[in-house]
Structure formats: structure tokens, C-alpha cells
């Protein structure tokens, strides 16, 4: 399967295996049940049921070998067979002899899990409802609409619902993982591309700098080179430099500059964003520009003479462009369908780009506002939040259903045995109070106190029920009901506690059953559900937790990559600034050289001064500042060879650098032939030195900028 959906695939494997496991459980329990029924069903119906289970089991067992399409198809076949199996029951019952509806018909959990894999959460819930509806209608028609039957069905629906919610949670976590991975990949590739662009840019810029420097050095040098050749060389340098600047303008011209140009072209006022707009994918950029152009054009045609404006807002990667006029306005609901302007050129354009939108606000006499918006994708966060929200919604739904079904159970029991009403009422209250204690837990993980209350309710409720009530499925409804609360405990992160409590509840039922000499099959049915739901919930939640950790890690990496990218982009912007600077200062002189006039000594010195200045841009670092820059330019103009070097690690305090520069200004002013000014590497005794005509001086402190000779005071 393709790499992109690895997370979702892993989640599907988990859910389909859970489905297979549930089939096995149903088969085992049903085998334990065989003694109970007096049903005689035709053999073909039994074969159909076994086949349905076998298909589910096979798909689960071989899931890792199947490609995703086959996996989903297999799951769909299993679901379809269950649906057919349930639907054909009346036919089978008609042919055979049925005293009560067999319970596996409503044990839809396994099918719900398969449905989740085949078609997602909707299929899952549809299966839950189908199972529930079948249970109610068949029991009414074929018998078994008694206490045990109704309560069994209620718990079957609850179990299936829990499986549906948890399975859906696992699937959404898997999809979230894919989204996070995709976002990570995208951020990584953007970062990589930006780094590549920066590297290419840096290299080109270095070559162009080199070209300009070499030309100026030649022009300044007293070495004889033919003037026409020098002029050709200068033309080449100018050409390269302007091309570099133009390329920069082309590749990185921000959206706002383009929008500003559009606005000015039709005489609209332009209001730029406070924050720089992010770089956009080319098609998005084109769509925004095109829609804005169309909106401006509409304003010009329909609101002639009105005040028009275009404003850009940017924040956190999102961009909003508003084109407004104070013209006559119109009623947007009356735009004819064939009015191409608004419908196609504006709204359509924006709708075609992902996460783009356009809205038109206007009313007769109130001007018109067209707002174009684009929100960048941040799939990671959406996915992570979506997970939890779906779980919360599902849990709330199951919680409400849980309480309602327990109320139904209690009423059914009271109707069945009116004298037991105080017991039923008391236990119902315990169930509801415990559920409420859990629901009102302020954090995700319940406090120790709340956990103890819920666990105590589940365990003691089981003990009391076992002692007080006869050991039938219906009478023991509170045991299963309270076990569902343990699922809540597990969902909220206390896996260990929930598992241990479930084990204790199972033990209580087993001991009670053995003491009451209840058949093994019945003990099995009584204990399976409590144990099963807690174990399944724990396993699924642990899997989700692992996926979420991975999502968090990917998210973190995506953020880091994005930071790297913006750093690269920042570095590129700085580079562009330097190139622009260079073009501004160097191009006029290079153009003069390219005219090929004879070079005078004064010209040479001017070229030398400029060449030195450009060189300083590369090597003088924080020494490249006024007033030193001016003093050095003057010295170079006198023919002094000046070299400024910044070998510091840029950690010197600003005040000290300023003092050093001021100190160097004095020294440079007296130079005759050569000057080397240098900020020393970190860890030296002094921070700066300057050598004037072979006479070295050390900077001795920011105090009064006094000078010290190397030979000491």
C-alpha cells in the first residue's frame, strides 16, 4: 500500500483484528450456550452463520497480507453476510422450530468493528442500530422478549457502541498520524527547497560580487589593461548584477507588492499588511491576484467615481484581501447566474484553490466589499484535535445511552418482579451516581478519590448483586452495567486500575456462580462482557496513545522544519538586501567604466574606494559602520590601501564596537600608505588592533579610546 496511508492502515488492522477476536469470543460463548436453547434451525442457516463468522475471522487473520482495498472489501463481505444472516432469520425460523431468538443475532460488536474498517464510523453506527432493531423485533415475534432477552440486548447494543466509538477513535488517530506525517513531509520538502534556493542564491550572489569586485579592482589598478576590454568587462558585471536583482524581484516579489501594483493601476488606495504575507503556492498567489484584479475592475465599472481601496491583512500564515468601494452597491442575492464577474472570476477562482474563499458584502446604497481569504493548511493540529473531539462526542453519546438503558433494565426488572423495586432503585442510583462522578472529573485522568468511588461501586455492586439476586443474566444486569463504568475509567487513562477491577468483578461472578451451582455456560455469558469490554478498551486506547505520541513527534518535527525554512528565507532576504545595496552603489560606477573613457588617477582612486567598500561588506563585519566607513573611504580616495577585518565572534558589546570604530577613525586619518584594522578573535587580551603604515596599535579600552603600542606603554 502507498506510504501515505500507513497510519490509517495500521489502525484498520487493529480494528479488523479486534473484529476477528470478537467473533471467536461469540463462538466460544455460543458453544457454552448450546445446552440452553431448544431451537431447531435448518442446517443451511447454521452454515450461513458459521461462514459469516469464518469470513470475519479470515479477514482479520490475514489482514496484514491484504492490500487496503482487499481488506476493506473483505470486511464489507463480512458485514454483508451478518446482515443477510440476521435478515434471513425469519425464513429459518419458519422452516425450523424456534422457542426464543438466539442471542448471537444481536451480538453485533464484531460486525461493527468490520463495518468501521469497511466504511468508517457511519457504517459502524448503522450496524449498531441494525443489530438493536433486529433484537427488538425478533424477540417480539419469535419469543424471548423477557427480562434476560431485553437486558442482554441492551448490553449488546452498549458493547457494540463502545466498540464503535473506540474503533472510530483508533481509525481517526491513524488518519491523524497520516496527516501529521504528510504535514511533516511537506514542511520538510519546503525547508529543503528553501535551503536549496538559498544555497543557489548564495553561490550566484558570491559570483556576482566577485565579478563586480574583480572589475573594480582592475579599474582601480595602475596595471595597464585595454580600456575597451575593461569596458566590456564592466558591462558584463552590470548585466549580471542587474539580472541578479531582477531575478530576486521575480522570485520573491511578495503578494502585497503585486496587489499594491494592481491597486495603483486602477487608482485605488492601497493599505498594506502589518505583518509580511507568507510566501504562497504559485496557483494560490495567481488566484488571489486574479480575483483581486477582477474585483477592482468590477468596482471601477459599477462604481465609477467612488472611493476604492484594496487592503491586505496577514496573520499567522493566513491572508485576507479586501476590495471595497463606497459606490451605489447592490443586492448580492440578485446577482444573475450568468453574471460572470462575481460568480466565476472572483468566487470561483478562490473556491478552486484549497482553503480559499471569497465573500461579497453589499447592499444598495452601502457600497461593496469583496473579501478574499486564504488559510494555510495546518493539518497536524486539526487532526490531533479532531481525534479527541470525536472520542468526546462518542463517549457522551454512549454515556447517555448507557444511563437510558440501565433505567430500562431497572424498569424491566421491576415489572418482572415488583417486590424487588427497592433493590433495583438502589442499584440504579449507584450506577448513575458512579457514572456522574466519573463524568464530572475535572481533568482527563480522574483523581484517586473519584477512581476509588467508581471502582468500589463496580466491585461492591457486583458482590451485593451476586449475594442478593438470583444468578440469571437479567438479575445480574448491574454487574455488566457497572463494568461499563470501568471502560470509562480506562478511557480516562487509568488502564491498570480498570483491568484489575474488571478481573475482580469477573472473579466475584465466578465465585458466586460456583457457589450457586450455576452451569459453566451461564457463568461464561455473565463474565464475558465485563471482561471483554475493559480489555478491548485498554488495548485500543494504548494503541491510540502510541499513535498520538508519534503524531506529537511528527508535529514537533514539522514545526522545526518550518522554523528552519523561515530561517533560510530570512537569510535569503538578507542576501537580497545586500545585493540591492551592491547594485545601488556599484552599478553607477561600473556603468561609467563601461563607457570606455580613459581612466584618470582620480577615477582610479574612486574605484579603489568603492572596491574597498564592497570588500568591507564581506569581511569588515561590525566595523563596516559610520563614521569609520566614511573615514576609510576618504583614506582610500587618497590612495591608502585599507583592509578592515572582523574576526570577533560578534559578541562584543555595541558600545565597545562603537568606541573601537571611533578610535580607528583617528588612526585612519593619519595613514599615508596602508591600514589594517582588525577586531581580534575572542579570547585575546585586547579586542582590536590597527596597523597604520606598518606601525601597530592596540585598542586598550572603551574609556577614552586611548591607544597603546604593541611594545607596551
Amino acid at each position, binding site marked *: 500500500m502507498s506510504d501515505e496511508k500507513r497510519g490509517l492502515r495500521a489502525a484498520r488492522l487493529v480494528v479488523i483484528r479486534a473484529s476477528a477476536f470478537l467473533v471467536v469470543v461469540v463462538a466460544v460463548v455460543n458453544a457454552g450456550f448450546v445446552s440452553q436453547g431448544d431451537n431447531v434451525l435448518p442446517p443451511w442457516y447454521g452454515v450461513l452463520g458459521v461462514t459469516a463468522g469464518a469470513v470475519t475471522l479470515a479477514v482479520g487473520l490475514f489482514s496484514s497480507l491484504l492490500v487496503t482495498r482487499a481488506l476493506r472489501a473483505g470486511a464489507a463481505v463480512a458485514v454483508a453476510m451478518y446482515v443477510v444472516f440476521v435478515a434471513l432469520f425469519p425464513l429459518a425460523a419458519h422452516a425450523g422450530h424456534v422457542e426464543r431468538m438466539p442471542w448471537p443475532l444481536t451480538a453485533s460488536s464484531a460486525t461493527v468493528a468490520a463495518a468501521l474498517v469497511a466504511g468508517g464510523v457511519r457504517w459502524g453506527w448503522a450496524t449498531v442500530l441494525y443489530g438493536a432493531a433486529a433484537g427488538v423485533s425478533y424477540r417480539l415475534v419469535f419469543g424471548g422478549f423477557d427480562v434476560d432477552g431485553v437486558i442482554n440486548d441492551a448490553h449488546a447494543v452498549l458493547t457494540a457502541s463502545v466498540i464503535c466509538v473506540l474503533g472510530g477513535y483508533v481509525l481517526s488517530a491513524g488518519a491523524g498520524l497520516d496527516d501529521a506525517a504528510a504535514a511533516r513531509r511537506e514542511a520538510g520538502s519546503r525547508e529543503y527547497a528553501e535551503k536549496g534556493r538559498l544555497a543557489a542564491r548564495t553561490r550566484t550572489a558570491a559570483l556576482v560580487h566577485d565579478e563586480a569586485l*574583480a572589475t573594480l579592482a582592475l579599474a582601480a589598478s595602475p*596595471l595597464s589593461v585595454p580600456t575597451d576590454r575593461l569596458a566590456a*568587462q564592466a558591462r558584463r558585471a552590470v548585466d549580471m548584477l542587474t539580472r541578479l536583482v531582477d531575478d530576486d524581484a521575480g522570485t520573491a516579489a511578495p503578494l502585497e507588492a503585486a496587489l499594491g501594483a494592481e491597486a495603483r493601476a486602477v487608482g485605488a488606495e492601497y493599505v498594506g499588511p502589518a505583518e509580511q504575507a507568507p510566501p504562497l503556492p504559485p496557483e494560490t498567489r495567481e488566484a488571489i491576484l486574479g480575483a483581486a484584479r477582477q474585483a477592482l475592475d468590477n468596482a471601477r465599472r459599477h462604481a465609477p467615481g467612488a472611493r476604492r481601496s484594496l487592503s491586505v491583512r496577514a496573520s499567522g500564515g493566513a491572508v485576507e484581501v479586501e476590495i471595497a468601494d463606497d459606490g451605489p452597491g447592490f443586492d448580492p442575492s440578485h446577482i444573475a447566474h450568468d453574471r460572470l464577474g462575481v460568480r466565476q472570476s472572483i468566487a470561483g477562482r478562490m473556491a478552486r484553490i484549497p482553503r480559499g474563499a471569497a465573500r461579497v458584502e453589499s447592499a444598495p446604497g452601502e457600497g461593496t466589499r469583496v473579501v478574499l481569504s486564504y488559510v494555510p493548511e495546518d493539518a497536524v493540529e486539526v487532526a490531533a484535535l479532531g481525534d479527541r473531539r470525536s472520542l468526546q462526542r462518542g463517549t457522551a453519546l454512549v454515556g447517555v445511552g448507557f444511563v437510558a438503558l440501565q433505567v430500562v433494565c431497572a424498569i424491566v426488572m421491576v415489572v418482572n418482579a415488583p417486590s424487588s423495586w427497592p433493590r433495583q432503585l438502589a442499584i440504579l442510583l449507584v450506577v448513575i451516581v458512579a457514572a456522574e462522578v466519573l463524568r464530572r472529573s475535572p481533568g482527563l485522568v480522574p483523581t484517586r478519590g473519584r477512581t476509588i468511588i467508581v471502582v468500589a461501586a463496580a466491585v461492591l455492586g457486583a458482590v451485593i448483586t451476586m449475594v442478593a439476586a438470583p444468578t440469571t443474566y437479567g438479575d445480574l444486569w448491574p454487574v455488566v452495567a457497572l463494568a461499563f463504568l470501568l471502560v470509562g475509567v480506562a478511557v480516562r487513562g487509568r488502564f491498570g486500575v480498570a483491568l484489575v477491577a474488571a478481573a475482580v468483578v469477573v472473579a466475584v461472578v465466578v465465585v458466586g456462580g460456583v457457589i450457586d451451582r450455576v452451569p459453566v455456560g451461564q457463568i461464561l455469558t455473565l463474565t464475558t462482557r465485563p471482561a471483554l469490554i475493559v480489555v478491548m478498551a485498554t488495548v485500543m486506547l494504548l494503541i491510540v496513545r502510541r499513535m498520538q505520541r508519534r503524531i506529537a513527534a511528527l508535529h514537533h518535527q514539522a514545526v522545526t522544519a518550518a522554523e528552519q525554512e523561515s530561517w533560510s528565507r530570512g537569510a535569503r532576504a538578507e542576501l537580497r538586501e545586500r545585493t540591492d545595496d551592491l547594485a545601488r552603489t556599484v552599478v553607477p560606477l561600473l556603468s561609467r567604466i563601461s563607457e570606455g573613457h580613459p581612466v584618470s588617477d582620480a577615477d582610479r582612486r574612486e574605484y579603489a574606494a568603492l572596491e*574597498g567598500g564592497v570588500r568591507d561588506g*564581506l569581511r569588515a563585519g561590525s566595523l563596516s559602520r559610520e563614521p569609520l566607513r566614511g573615514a576609510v573611504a576618504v583614506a582610500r580616495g587618497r590612495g591608502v590601501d585599507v583592509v578592515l577585518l572582523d574576526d570577533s565572534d560578534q559578541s562584543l558589546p555595541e558600545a565597545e564596537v562603537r568606541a573601537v570604530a571611533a578610535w580607528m577613525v583617528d588612526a585612519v586619518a593619519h595613514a599615508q600608505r596602508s591600514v589594517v584594522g582588525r577586531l581580534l578573535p575572542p579570547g585575546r587580551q585586547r579586542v582590536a588592533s590597527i596597523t597604520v603604515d606598518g606601525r*601597530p596599535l592596540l585598542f586598550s579600552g572603551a574609556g577614552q579610546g586611548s591607544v597603546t603600542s604593541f611594545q607596551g606603554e
Partner: protein
Amino acid sequence: MGAMAERRVAIVDDHELVALAVRNLLTEAEGLTFARHADTVAALVSRARDADLVLLDLSLRDGSTPAENVAALRRWGVHVLVLTSGEDPFLVRAASRADVAGIVRKSAPPTALLDAITTAASGEHVATTEWASAVDADPLLHGAPLTEREREVLGLYASGLGAREVAGQLFISENTVNDHLRRIRAVYQLIGRPATSKVELYQRGIEDGFVPGPRRV
């Protein structure tokens, strides 16, 4: 030097004009003749060796690195003097770690340029401020086996002094200063050998006789 045979100087630079300027400079120089100009090192070494010294532009447009270029030229059997227009310290360091005679700025005064060419053509080390400051500021040098005195000489040289001035400052002979500079250059080129850890560097220093101790030269 006048007694010696003529030294042939070639140049690799993608600006033909620079080659022209160098050619003009060499016509006035004694004992030096201009051999050839090539745009790339590959183009130069594709023919039989016809030079003793090559002036190599630090940033060539063909994407080659200083280290590769110097290595190719040394294999060809010539001394290498690097010419730079700017002084990007990283490039200068990369060149300094390679086996070059020295590094000279194109915008240096013609006399200084000619001196450097003459010195390099005879296989001697050409120490310049650009070279010394790039090396002196290289953090890698912290682990290099240099004596205090050598570091002192390098620091002074990097500050823009010539050998004579450094000698005057330290009350030693100019020859001794040049000895120090040669050794610094050799040690720094050691750093340029691939796969050097500090320990390995030190071991190599012992083998090559560069470790601090009795003066070798």
C-alpha cells in the same frame, strides 16, 4: 634570483582581463614569464605541464572547490598562489588548508603582487595579512600544536604587520619570523588533511616533526 632559470607563470581565472593584467605585470618582471591562461583548472591541466607556478582564482564559476583545484594543480606539478577579490574567510581558510604557497588579494598594490608571485614561483611561502587573519581566527587552530611564540607571530602578522615589523616587535630576526610562518602554514595544512581528530592531528604532528619542542628548521 636573477641567476636562476626563468619561472613560467600560468593563471586560472574566469576573467580574461585579469589574465591580461597579470601578463602585463609580468613583462616588467625579471625572471618570470607568462605561460598560459585558462578558465578552469581542468582546462589548464589537460595539457602537458608548461608552468612552474599557477595563479588560481579563489571562486571559479565552474563550481569547483579550492581544495580540489589545488590538489589537481599540485598533482600537475606546480606551485599554487591563490588570488582573491574579496576575502570570504571561509574560502580563504579552505584554500589555506590546501597545499598552497599563499593567498593574495587581487587589489593588492602591484609591487606586493609581483613580490608574492616571485616568492611563490620559487616554492617559498607567501605570508599575507589575508591568509594570517583567516588562519588566526579559525577556531580549528585551538587544537593545533602551535607554540605560544608561533601564535604570537601569527597574531601580529594577522594585524597587518610584515615579517620585518613582526621581527622588530618580538626582538627576533626576520628569518626566524619566516621560519615560524612556514611552520604555521605546514601545521595548518595538516588540519586540511581529511579525517583529522585532535588526537590524530597530534600524532601526525609528531610524525612530521611539527610538535612543539626542539626547533626543526
